[in-house]
């Protein structure tokens, strides 16, 4: 039974995207990857559900990069 929510949950999705973009403004790809790694850990702990985390990892891995 899927627990991962992929429906949009932000009232203003553009504002959420901008927050993520502005967090990496001026960073190199590598520095942004470090930031993202910390973000992943923080948000994973906030979710606190191993099933959701496993599903999210599967979705991220299975998506074809463009």
């Amino acid at each position: 039974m899927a627990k991962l929510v992929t429906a949009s949950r932000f009232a203003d999705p553009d504002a959420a995207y901008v927050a993520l973009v502005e967090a990496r403004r001026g960073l190199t790809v590598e520095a942004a990857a470090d930031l993202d790694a910390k973000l992943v850990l923080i948000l994973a702990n906030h979710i606190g559900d191993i099933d959701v985390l496993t599903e999210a990892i599967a979705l991220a891995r299975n998506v074809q990069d463009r």
Partner: protein
Amino acid sequence: METAADKARFRYGYRRSPDQDAGAAAPHPVIVVGAGPVGLTAAIDLALRGVSVVILDDSDRIGEGSRGICWSKRTLEIWDRLGLAARMVEKGVTWKLGKVFCGDDLVYGFDLQPEDGHKMPAFINLQQYYVESALVGRAAELDGVDLRWRNKVVGLEPRNDHVRLAIDTPDGPYDLDADWVIAADGARSTLRELLGLTFRGVTFDDQFLIADVRMAADFPTERRFWFNPTFHNGQSSLMHRQPDNVWRIDLQLDRAADAVAEQQPARVIERLKRILGDRSFEPEWVSVYRFNCRRLDRFIHGRVIFAGDAAHQVSPFGARGANSGVQDAENIAWKLAAVLRGEAGFGLIASYEVERAQAADENIAHSTRSTDFIAPHSAAERRLRDAVLALAPRAEFARRMVNSGRLSVATVHDTPLSSPDEAPFRGPARLGAPVPDVPLRARAGTPGFLLERLAGTPEVLYVDDGGRPSLPAGVKLTVIGDDLIDETGLFAQRFDATPGATYLLRPDQHLAARWRAFDGHKIGQALGRMLAR
């Protein structure tokens, strides 16, 4: 090379005005500087409200390039009130669907007007020169508009209760006095320079190539946007239909691209062939542009009122430039007319700045976000953007973040002219915003729409419950259920109407106040607030 004059679609002659022989500065209530969509809309609106207007423009022609092509529903509703939307909608290409592709795959589609029951479509595409020539034609029908070509403002002197303008013409200089000046003279505003005003905001170093091409093609009538397409080296691209078999193709270039080289015909044709294949086409207008997202701190400087690109500028993604300018024009026109007639307090003029600065900030925020998504600033930002695009086909949350431009809609103004609701109302009608259109049948049986039946004065819509309301002078009463019949039930739905519900509308069709029951005293108070009395 063609000269600018060769490319002009419409030319107008300079004519000497009697004011130039007056010996002293002739006084006028309102002078509009700039005969673009914003200045012309303001002048026509004022003239229809009984205020005579002089428009000054330093050029004598329109139509160097298609420029703005997307005209929004709200803009069309304004032009319908001014009596010229029908010819524009007839000539224009009506559309409401958009598709967003990543690579060559469709990731996302949108419908800007999924519901029926509106007179005007979500958008039409129409070359700006057609729009301007329709506006010039309408202005010529009105005695109240005096349009003076090749009149260049070269000096501006604020006086106690008016402004003196120094003007250059082919016959030499003359002066004019105006109670109020509307500065609608565009992104490179002369009046802004004369007042020494500067912009606050961001200049982007991204470059885009516009190529309008003439070709017979059966591509669908929808806005099509590509991220990372194979046909354009992974840069963003847009294709959009215009009348006369003209297609707008908008291509992102490298930041370092040579703008002059990119406009060479051979180079443009080579790029276009990668998109259009072997189909025959003819480039009609080519331009490379950069853009700004910025505004003046204040739109009102004494008796000079800035509107449109002269006051604020946005990136083109979202069609928020000219459309917001036309809404500026409508906003200031009724207010100036009411103040000049002595029906309203000076605070009404100040409310223009309160309301339209909110709109400018909203438009700048949206167009900046779109630009950040379309043209990421760095490799790190591009990774995030591409991750959203990769997830989009599989996850709805990512589709909602895909941003190829959030298209212009009317602003909901948080304004001192509105009276707060005393009882809750649901539905799309919002205080401080234009009321939604709905189909309504006249008592005599003629079908039609609400907005086209509004008088352009303060107006009360009252849902019949058998009462006999009486109103303050100068306010028109329309009884829903008697004067106009809500056959479809859409008025009830969009206004959350119940018997006795009463709505006070501004002359610009914005909702100022509403109540569950008619109360003449409350209407009087709300009217005073609406007119800053």
